[in-house]
């Protein structure tokens, strides 16, 4: 079973559109949406939720005003500015370290577990899908990504899938690193813009740092031919293969509005290129 993650560095390069297309083309695969902050894959794969699980992670401090003597030790000790001067907790700033509850001389501070989000095991017409939603203004997205990954892998193995295809988040931090762990291939989707190139290089540095097999797809390559050529040169120097160059197509937006993978929506050049890309990898 091979795990393939689609990442980008820069947001909006086309990860989810591509992942959904792979889902439609793969004959025997499971899927995971690891962009737990702003998940979109479900809009194209239309999963039917079979199991819902709570994601409980981290704690938030709570002050019992009846016990509080207003000595201020908690305010002094908090490194995250989560204790307000009126001895209430800013739950958004609170990182749940519990130092305040330990220093409180009257035990007025307790730590309450957060319901930080939910994760789901669903069925789509293309195969099983694991996805999640982080709660509003919650932390620990990396942990939730890891949970999604673990369950997607488990299902893929249990059901003898050939592939687990993962829609990754943008950026290079914790959620991205969690979505990269132990994959067989990281596909970086970039665009021929200076921002796209800059961000691609940083995320390629991350995959290199973690010794992950990496390939690049240049999406919307016809926006700027010179930049597309620069990307090819950069990848050559980095010894990273550019596996496809996809043209800009207005059909992409139309397929998203329709709520289906582009390879199902139409058969224009980009759809043909994506089919060829999938065969290649």
């Amino acid at each position, binding site marked *: 079973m091979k795990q393939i993650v689609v990442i980008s560095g820069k947001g909006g390069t086309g990860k989810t559109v591509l992942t959904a297309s792979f889902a439609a083309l793969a004959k025997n695969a499971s899927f995971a949406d690891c962009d737990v*902050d702003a998940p979109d894959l479900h*809009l194209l794969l239309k999963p039917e939720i079979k199991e819902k699980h709570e994601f409980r992670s981290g704690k938030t401090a709570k002050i019992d005003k009846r016990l509080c003597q207003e000595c201020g030790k908690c305010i002094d000790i908090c490194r995250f500015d989560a204790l307000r001067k009126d001895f209430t907790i800013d739950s958004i700033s609170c990182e749940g370290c*519990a130092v305040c509850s330990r220093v409180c001389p009257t035990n007025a501070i307790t730590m309450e577990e957060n319901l930080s989000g939910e994760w789901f095991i669903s069925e789509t017409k293309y195969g099983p899908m694991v996805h999640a939603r982080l709660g509003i203004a919650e932390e620990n997205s990396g942990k939730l990504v890891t949970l999604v990954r673990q369950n997607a892998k488990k299902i893929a193995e249990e059901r003898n899938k050939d592939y687990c295809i993962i829609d990754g988040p943008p*950026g290079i931090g914790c959620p991205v690193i969690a979505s990269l762990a132990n994959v067989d291939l990281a596909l970086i989707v970039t665009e021929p813009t200076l921002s796209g190139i800059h961000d691609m290089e940083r995320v390629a540095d991350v995959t290199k*740092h973690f010794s992950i097999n990496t390939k690049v797809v240049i999406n919307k390559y016809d926006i700027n031919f010179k930049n597309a050529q620069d990307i090819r040169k950069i990848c050559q120097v980095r010894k990273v293969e550019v596996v496809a160059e996809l043209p800009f197509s207005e059909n992409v937006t139309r397929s998203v509005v329709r709520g289906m993978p582009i390879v199902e929506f139409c058969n224009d050049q980009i759809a043909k290129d994506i089919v060829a890309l999938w065969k290649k990898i």
Partner: protein
Amino acid sequence: MIISIASGKGGTGKTTVATSLALSINSGIQLLDCDVEEPNAHIFLKPKIQQSKTVYIPVPKIDESKCTFCGRCAEVCTYNALAVLKEKVLTFPHLCHGCGGCNLFCPQKAITEGDKKIGVVEIGNSSHVQFVHGRLNIGEVMSPPLIRAVKEYINPTRSVIVDAPPGTSCPVIESVKGSDFCILVTEPTPFGLNDLILAVEVLKKLTIPFGIAVNRADIGDSSLDDYCEKENIPILMRIPFKKKIAFAYSKGLALVSEFPEYKKEFIRVYKEISERIR
């Protein structure tokens, strides 16, 4: 006044709006690029960097000559960043949140805080715009501490524009926290709308007033407009989908530098936001 620019969905045009706003207002502006994982504003503003500051976070350093391996540090650590074995203490700096609990509660005072580099903050100028951004080191997991470091450079005598990262979790929260108004940049597609709704919930929880900037406004469908009307959310401006705009963007050219006719739009939005905050 601090205006943050966020979105939910990546690639909607936050940096385009942030840099255009900064360049359209004639004076007294500071731009903070808080997308420390993938900073892009410098590509369009081309600032002259005058100062570079390495940013550290405190991580535990154990003095094994004093340590009795009692295990108290691991007990108090909420993040499992310490493991106490028979005659060794293991630390996992990437899990450390820098809360200070371990050194505070060590009965032997055997723990000090060493510094771990996580990235840099760079400060400079681009014509009349004061510029600050952060760049997270490759392989570092947490961006909020670096974002906090960037925001330490907020100049209260200026109008500050904060370019936030994509998403809706801690890096975004850290970036938009404390701002007087947030412009949510979106596109009229199902992805744009889906993620916008999440971003709106975040801003409501943070009680930050907001308005929408619609980019690539003539693609997609009408569901974004319907949503904004239903929820009474102001649409502050619309930027059309034009290949020439995309091409200029691809070359790292700021929208209002290439197409100065948009400046008056950004000035109008800036004035409208100032009024709304009042």
